[in-house]
């Protein structure tokens, strides 16, 4: 019996995907230090490489309607191995969630409200995410299109407002950097913005009718990637080479907006948009983690686990790294290594095995 009683429609899946990927707009700054002015290429390449993998998630979800990731793992790999893989996924979810929460805290500590203690942001933010999770996935999906609109508005409006400060010759020369750096950048991009969408394997079990799941996933992915691309192009065009030295290139780019005497101090606009998008992303992560844990232990509902798991996440986020430098280094180097099998290898493998073994078997009397 699936834990989640809510249902989402395929169109909402599109909004979910796009909003989720937009939440990673901040994280472009990870790759900028490595790929400089070729970030847009790296994003495009990452998109092309990740698309088949992500579409395989959708196909896998279509094959196992109404079942979330833990159940699929159980079915495909057998009880024991499936549970081990689910535990690996839960580890991945919890680590990534704590990194993201820490990201939001760092954003505020560095740019917007410097004197407030760090843990305050973590606690308040996580409590709001926990509130969203307690309300259920249906409420989150219902507001997903609003969040997407906010994100798109922020991205496009800042792009337009900065057009007069853009210098498109900053993109030349193409193909300057050595290939190893490009490769590293592609790896990071396909892991962090695009690879994190593996969480949707847990959510696609709630789809109402899964006929258009693949199409909507693809379009959601495109919209999310398009907005990332716009952000990367804007930063490179406006900041040129300096984008590699700022902690957050997007913020400094926004601070340069100077139109008339009115539109001069817009950095909070992007602060608001980023907070909301990150909230959306972290709520989905928290939800997925809580449902996975409760599914693993065979609980009937996931509600009692929300607050305790959220508290654990706050503690991890507060203590895991010493500084943003640490954070950047570890995610760029270690994070992508341990998440690679989960994102690229296991779901397509599950799909293959399922095809070969002919799962899900219809005569199985198992309750789904």
């Amino acid at each position, binding site marked *: 019996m699936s834990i989640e009683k809510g249902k989402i429609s395929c*169109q909402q899946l599109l909004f979910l995907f796009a909003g989720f990927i937009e939440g990673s707009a901040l994280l472009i700054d990870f790759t900028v230090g490595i790929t400089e002015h070729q970030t847009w290429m790296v994003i495009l390449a990452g998109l092309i490489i990740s698309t088949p993998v992500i579409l395989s998630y959708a196909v896998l979800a279509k094959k196992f309607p109404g079942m979330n990731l833990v159940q699929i793992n159980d079915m495909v790999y057998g009880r024991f191995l499936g549970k081990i893989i689910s535990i690996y996924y839960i580890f991945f979810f919890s680590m990534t969630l704590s990194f993201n929460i820490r990201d939001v805290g760092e954003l*505020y500590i560095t740019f*917007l*409200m410097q004197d*407030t203690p760090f843990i*305050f*942001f973590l606690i*308040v*933010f996580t409590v*709001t995410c926990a*509130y*969203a999770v307690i*309300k*259920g996935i*249906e*409420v989150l999906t*219902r*507001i997903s*299109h*609003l969040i997407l609109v906010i994100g798109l508005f922020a991205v496009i409006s800042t792009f337009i407002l900065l057009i007069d400060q853009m210098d498109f010759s900053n993109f030349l020369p193409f193909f300057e950097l050595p290939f190893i750096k490009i490769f590293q950048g592609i790896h990071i991009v396909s892991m962090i913005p695009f690879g994190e969408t593996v969480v949707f394997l847990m959510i696609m079990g709630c789809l109402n009718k899964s006929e258009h799941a693949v199409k909507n996933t693809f379009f959601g992915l495109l919209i999310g990637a398009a907005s990332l691309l716009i952000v990367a192009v804007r930063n490179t065009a406006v900041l040129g080479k300096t984008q590699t030295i700022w902690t957050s290139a997007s913020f400094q780019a926004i601070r340069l907006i100077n139109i008339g*005497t*009115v539109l*001069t*101090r817009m*950095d*909070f606009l992007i*602060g*608001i948009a980023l*907070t*909301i998008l990150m*909230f959306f992303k972290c709520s989905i992560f928290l939800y997925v983690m809580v449902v996975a844990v409760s599914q693993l232990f065979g609980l009937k509902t996931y509600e009692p686990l929300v607050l305790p798991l959220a508290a654990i996440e706050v503690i991890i986020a507060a203590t895991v790294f010493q500084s943003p430098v640490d954070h950047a280094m570890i995610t760029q180097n270690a994070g992508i290594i341990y998440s690679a099998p989960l994102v690229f290898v296991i779901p397509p493998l599950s799909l293959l095995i399922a095809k070969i073994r002919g799962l899900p078997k219809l005569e199985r009397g198992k309750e789904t």
Partner: protein
Amino acid sequence: MFGFIYKITRYLSLKNKNMLQNTESDKNNSEPITPDLEKNLEVIKGIFRDSSDVTIHEFNFGHERKFKGALIFIDNLANKEEIHKNILQPLMYGVLLFRNNVDIDFTKIDSIRENLISMTDNSKVSMISDLLDSLLAGSAILLIDGSKEALAIKPGKRESRSIEEPGTEAVVRGPREGFIENVNVNIALLRRKIKDTELCVEKLVIGDKSKTDVYIVYIKSIANPKLIEEIRKRLKRIKIEAILESGYIEQFIEDSPYSIFPTISNSEKPDKVAAKILEGRAAIMVDGTPFVLVVPMMFIESFQSVEDYYARPFFASIIRVIRFLSYIISTLGPAIYVALTVFHQELIPTQLLISIAEGRERVPFPALLEAFLMLFAFDLLREAGVRLPKPVGQTVGIVGALVLGEASVEAGLISPIMVIVVSATAIASFAVPAQTDSGTILRYIYLALAGIAGGFGVIMGLLATLLHLASLRSFGTPYLWPVVPLDLSGLKDVFIRMPLWTMSKRPEAITWDNCDSYSQSPDLMPSAYKKDDNDSK
């Protein structure tokens, strides 16, 4: 284990209490009216021995005065003129127009009713309890010696206000009639708007001691039967002594009692209620109050006013946008001001910052406290203004303006910018009347969040509010429809008002595809007069 035992004993003790309550009210029931007039009168006199306004008039009628009867009514509830003219007169004099030996048995209530009583609104009662109910509702009771039934005759007129413009919902263009306290008049007003056979008016009586008439009004072919069933179920569940106003009912049947936002709307205007009924909603009319409840409610309705539909679309759209903006200003105004000036001064343009700083030079309070004080003072004024006796009204208004405005700034207690912000907030809060209560609470919450955590607090507060609103349902309809479960056809009436000839569909979330979804023909756009060849000029 002890907890379990404790729970069981508590349950049992509570059950006993309930049963106790039930038996008390059972006292007067289940006794039928006896044919013996004297005995009945004894019982009734016994019940009403402490009330001096119950009149019992015994009389004889018929040829040779052979029949005895009694007329019981409550002095000020029944209409004495009608009783004299239409009950006593025919009984005492009109019966003499019959022949002496006519074969109509005047001890039967039916015969009296069909032949003598010249009032239309009457019904037979056979139990003492029903008799007492009708008596207390204002009917005159006719008891005949020898009859097991009595006749309860409802009075025609009842004292009530005249129909005037509702105080809380004034319009510039549109009908100026409003509901009054008499529910029958209200239903009549509604029937004038919707002359359809499908308009159902279901009656319920709620309240043990007040026995208030509550009517559920809906259009059978449009409204969702499940909705009506749900309303009936919830209304029947109410076990309370008195329903004094529709607000009582609202608080007992609403979906989320702990939420700040109202999920049941109310209105005083018949055209507004009629329009909502035509969309598939149901109205709940309560006797004794001009405020009619309408379910289900959506958040958007607080921003829509009837006038929007009588004015032309462009102007109506602008006014609607202004209403949205004023709601945002009224809830977020002080919060944003405090957040910006206390936490995020880098976001204010330099010149403005210097002006604000100059204004705040002499103020001894921190900005958060100043804002709280001003808001509190404003709410004080508003509340006092409502309760004022009329002669004192002007004085308090002037004093309030002077004290809060000029004098405080001069004395250096408040900065001038704060006065501006709070005044703007105050004025804006009246633009959206249905949400004033939620707006007031939200204002304080956002202000507190802003004072503690600046912009971050306000954003988190907004997100929590959004999540809460998105999860609210009002009798099955999502509260933020059509924005939150996105429905493009419903969006025509949300932020702007599209012309009437484009809005041909009923809102889906209320009727749930129960009925014909087109309420008007889709191609009604007015077109310019085209010159025919046959026209001469």
